[in-house]
């Protein structure tokens, strides 16, 4: 019989390092001459340098190295797919196993908070240029921080009541505690960036700004297009609504006893984990393809499995059945195996089958990819005073890639504003 891990919705899934264990882990680092880990980060984080700082008992210096490069260093430490990035590049793999770089980054940022460090500073004299960022997700936050560091006056417009985008509304808090997200956002705010919440941006709102970054993300659910029936039933959710409602209501949210989550990405895993941690008895991820094809990180699948969540591959849902007030069952068919079919009892069905962009051409004269509706950019430039990055450009990738794109766009914006000679 397998031992199942019991977790709490708002409790850390993994314990962090203490001073002692962090030092032990840093001591395992080979301190490479040309640290390959430092070349493995999309956002350009330099683990070779910050781990060396930890090893030589300069944890504040370590936090500075992380924070100066990545304003979302705390969140990235939790959600980055390290095993595909810096940790995969780690030389120590040649001996036994890689250094736990993500966990060391988490430790350094925890120390930063403990010491109440104020690593990032904006210049006292502001530049005249006014910049707006649409959306308060990872790409916008990273872009805003770079611009504020360069002395520009930045305003972030956010439709929701809180900043963070997917960090706040899309990821289960066991994996990414809200306090970690808030600490990262506090760094952005500390640079003098202005946040405007509950604000649906219109084209007119952006007229007064010298440059605009669009980091609106993907928030329109794309439901199964296989002629699914019964999507209107109570108990059928999109992952965005499900996760958001869970994060808002927390313990008071009832996910139902039997939960089926459709999808094979990180959002599907997060939805399943959320349901399980909030008390659902039987949670199953239903994915039409194979594990090998699933976009989610295998570590996340393993975490879900350790909580007792089942993963069923090869099936896709065709219909939901129930009464007006309640979902009762979900019917599924084989995706590759045409002979396969199944029927599951379910109280809740969550579609985590991807998200789509909203029409950004309504607020800015940007070029859109005709098929997917994503914003087309060249090194962050989307034409005239408009720039974009993050999921709205790349179609939904990692947080660290959104940070990288936000930084790249910020550099292009600074270049644009300087050339334009904004006064």
């Amino acid at each position: 019989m397998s031992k199942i891990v019991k977790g709490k919705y708002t409790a850390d899934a993994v314990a962090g390092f203490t001073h002692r264990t962090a030092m032990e882990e840093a001591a395992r680092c080979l301190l490479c001459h040309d640290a390959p880990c430092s070349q493995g980060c999309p956002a350009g984080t330099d683990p070779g340098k910050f781990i060396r700082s930890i090893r030589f008992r300069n944890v504040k210096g370590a936090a500075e190295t992380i924070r100066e490069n990545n304003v979302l260093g705390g969140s990235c430490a939790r959600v980055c797919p390290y095993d595909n990035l810096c940790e995969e590049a780690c030389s120590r793999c040649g001996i036994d196993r890689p250094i736990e770089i993500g966990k060391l980054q988490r430790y350094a940022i925890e120390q930063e908070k403990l010491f109440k460090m104020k690593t990032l500073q904006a210049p006292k004299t502001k530049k005249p240029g006014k910049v707006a960022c649409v959306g308060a997700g990872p790409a916008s936050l990273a872009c805003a921080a770079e611009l504020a560091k360069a002395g520009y006056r930045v305003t972030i417009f956010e439709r929701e009541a809180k900043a963070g985008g997917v960090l706040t509304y899309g990821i289960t808090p066991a994996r990414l505690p809200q306090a970690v997200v808030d600490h990262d956002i506090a760094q952005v705010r500390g640079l003098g960036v202005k946040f405007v919440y509950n604000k649906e941006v219109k084209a007119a709102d952006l007229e007064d700004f010298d440059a605009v970054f669009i980091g609106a993300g993907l928030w329109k659910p794309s439901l199964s297009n296989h002629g699914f029936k019964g999507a209107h039933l109570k108990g059928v959710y999109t992952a965005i609504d499900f996760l958001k409602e869970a994060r808002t209501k927390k313990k008071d949210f009832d996910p139902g006893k039997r939960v089926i989550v459709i999808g094979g990405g990180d959002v599907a895993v997060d939805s399943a984990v959320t349901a399980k941690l909030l008390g659902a008895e039987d949670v199953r991820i239903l994915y039409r393809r194979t594990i090998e094809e699933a976009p989610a990180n295998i570590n996340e699948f393993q975490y879900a499995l350790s909580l007792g969540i089942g993963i069923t591959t090869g099936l896709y849902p065709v219909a939901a059945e129930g009464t007006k007030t309640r979902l009762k069952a979900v019917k599924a068919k084989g995706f590759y195996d045409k002979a396969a079919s199944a029927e599951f009892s379910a109280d809740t069905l969550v579609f985590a089958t991807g998200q789509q962009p909203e029409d950004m051409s309504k607020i800015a004269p940007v070029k859109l990819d005709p098929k997917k509706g994503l914003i087309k950019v060249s090194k962050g430039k989307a034409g005239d005073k408009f720039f974009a990055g993050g999921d709205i450009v790349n179609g939904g990738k990692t947080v660290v890639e959104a940070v990288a794109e936000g930084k790249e766009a910020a550099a292009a914006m600074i270049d644009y504003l300087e050339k334009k000679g904004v006064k």
Partner: protein
Amino acid sequence: MAKKDLSIKYLGVDCLNPFFLSSSPVGGNYDMVAKCYETGWGGCFFKTVGIFVADECSPRFDQTNKEGLPWVGFKNMEQISDKPTEVNFEYIYRLVRDYPEHITVASIMGSSVSEWKQLAKMCDEAGVKLIEGNFSCPQMTSHDMGSDVGTNNELVESYSRAVAETTDIPFIAKMTPNCKNMEEHAMAAIRGGAAAVSAINTIKSITNVDFENLTGMPVVDGKSSISGYSGAAVKPIALRFCTQVNQCEELQKMVKGGKYDFGYGHEMSGIGGIETWRDCAEFLAVGCRNIQVTTAIMQYGYRIVEDMISGMQYFMDERGYNSLDEFIGCALPKLIPAEELNREYKVLPKFDDKKCIGCGRCYVSCYDAAHQAIDWNEKKRRPELNDNCVGCHLCLNVCPVQECITPGEIKWKVRDKDGNAVREAKNPAKIKFKKNAKKDKSLSLKEHYE
């Protein structure tokens, strides 16, 4: 494996094995010592007894660590026993009576000739087979005792004489490393009538500075003091002192033919940073016939002796030794002055590209700290040795991969008329040396190192 016999005669006394507790908190009362004997220790140097009864401070320990590895070194501020003299001798008497096969050694410390005599007499009455004189505790609150005495040849000699005149029990003088020349003090002890010396006691130290109280550590009500350092970090220093004392010809001559010459020359007891059977074997190799341990017991408990015994037996089996005597002192002839080393000889490092993981540590250290003899192939992420190599082996020492960099080709210097090394050759005249070097390698203890 046939269990090898670890018994040994030390100063004429039959010991089950050479593994003893050193005089310290690990052997401070009857129950502790009884437990250590049950666990397998051959004997115990009981915590030093004096007429002076110590008044201890709190806290009294600190440790040094490196990269998260604790207890690299250990500092203690304890003095000699804080129990009344009579209580200690009662413990010792009972241990001698109840554990006749185990060797309970009385460690004593006086502050005057009469005190030393008085203590020696009590040892005689308790029936101990060996006495150790503590001339070396570096944190005594009285300057008439401890390492201040141990560096004063006149006092060492006269106190050793005080004991020797009182009893025939062999007397071992415990030396302090806080000295300029240990052989001098050791000879003073032998001159006074001591049978042998033991070394090293702890090294005067300040392990860490506390930045809250702006003093050393441990912090005793806001202040701290210099006191003794021990543990793994001091082993190299201890091995050096043991080697020097054992190699001292003048001292060996003094012992030879004397009252306490049992046919083995000077019978040193080695102390300092011993944790494993291998550490023990090293002290035996430099001529020690008895081994004393404390710090490792403070960290891990008496049970460490189990692996000392088993590991030593496996070692002896592997090397074909049937008794400890067969290898005691085996390294002494090959430990020679620096001026006598063959400086024509040079071993180049050999790099195993398949084992190499490309960390570049050898490159960094060679460039920043040696002779820029390694080029870094950025494409392959591999080191490449160039002609600057002097064979220092810094690369081999920093490499984190087991047996990735190993000793390789041997080169011999070719000198011009003025004695300047002009080029290198595979000198055929030295082939004999090379063969020996190879043989040594096959016999190396490397596998036990890892």
